[in-house]
């Protein structure tokens, strides 16, 4: 069995040691750092990209939030304006209404005063007419002039009785 030939041990061990040490040094100093660098570069790159994507996402979200805030503000402002306009219009309408009512009330008052005046005038005229009529009637019935003062007094008494 060639494996048990002791004379082959020294050359095998010597060259094993040389080969292994050479390979170890090549891997430790040259090979593995190269692989490690490539992997590290990739990991850094991927992490960088992820970070950038995260940042962009955050920015986009901020923009969306700002937009929504602006939208809400605009909406609120619009509602405010709408409400103010409605209030103003309501106030104006109420004012007009009030003025109209006042004018109407004033006109009504004036008309009433005129009517009262007319009524008073009419009543005064009625009294004079009644006195005239009473005197004429009395003259026709009695045949003689009735004193104007007495007729007036009689008409007033009669009017007071009626009213």
């Amino acid at each position, binding site marked *: *069995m*060639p*494996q*048990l*030939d002791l*004379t*082959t*041990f*020294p*050359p*095998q*061990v*010597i*060259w*094993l*040691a*040389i*080969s*292994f040490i*050479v*390979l*170890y040094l*090549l*891997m*430790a100093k*040259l*090979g*593995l750092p*190269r*692989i*490690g*660098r*490539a*992997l590290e*570069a*990739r990991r850094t*790159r991927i992490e960088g990209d992820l970070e950038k994507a995260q940042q962009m996402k955050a920015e986009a979200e901020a923009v969306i939030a700002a937009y929504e805030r602006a939208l809400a503000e605009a909406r609120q402002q619009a509602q405010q304006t709408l409400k103010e306009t409605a209030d103003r219009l309501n106030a104006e309408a109420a004012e007009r209404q009030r003025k109209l009512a006042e004018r109407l009330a004033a006109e009504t008052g004036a008309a009433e005063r005129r009517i009262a005046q007319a009524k008073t005038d009419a009543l005064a005229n009625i009294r004079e007419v009644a006195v005239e009529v009473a005197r004429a009637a009395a003259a026709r019935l009695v045949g003689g002039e009735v004193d104007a003062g007495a007729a007036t007094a009689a008409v007033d008494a009669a009017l007071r009785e009626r009213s």
Partner: protein
Amino acid sequence: MATENPLHQFTIKRLIEIHIGGIDASYTNSALLMSIAVAFITAFVVLTTRRAALVPGRWQSVTEMFYEFVVDMVDRNAGHDARPYLPFVFTLFAFILCGNLLGLIPYSFTFTSHIIVTFALAITVFIGVTIIGIARHGFRFLSLFVPHGVPKVLLLLLVPIELLSYCIRPFTLSIRLFANMLAGHTMLVIFAGFVAALGIAGILPLAVDSALVLLELLVAVLQAYVFAILTCLYLADALHLH
């Protein structure tokens, strides 16, 4: 019809006779295959990572996958603080794997089929791991041999067993690899011998040999992996005791 001696393939041939101070340091076929392994691994790693592309090509991926496989193996089995020993485990794994696989090439030579080679590797691991353990833990390293939660009386029995199982590690480690390589390659040659001897019926041993080559490919990878992972586990013992 004389078939070849199945053990003849393991013969060490001195290609260049070198003697230094009475010590035989000849460059043998074993040394040649070791040199090829070193050259191949180095060339493969260096050439495939030459461009170090952000998106790796096919060959760069092979190197990176192998590297990450070893990193993962070391991290999982020996912990993160075993990282300084990553180059050693990587070299060991790549060297044995390459030696096993190169040995499967016809007319080649398998340097891992020699007990002296596997033993030299195993004893290096054993001594290295023991030194790491003592340097790290000093006297407490001996607690590795004292199992936890065992009655004191049983320790009289268990401590020698633990000590023995620790000390036979280089032997089990080296014999496992050596025996697998020896058996596989011997079988391949035995069946190959039948192919010519049986004439037309030689197709049967040829089929067996074809299947055996596939099996040996698996064994070559597996045994390199087993050697590397056991190294990691021994390292874990030295770094963390129990």
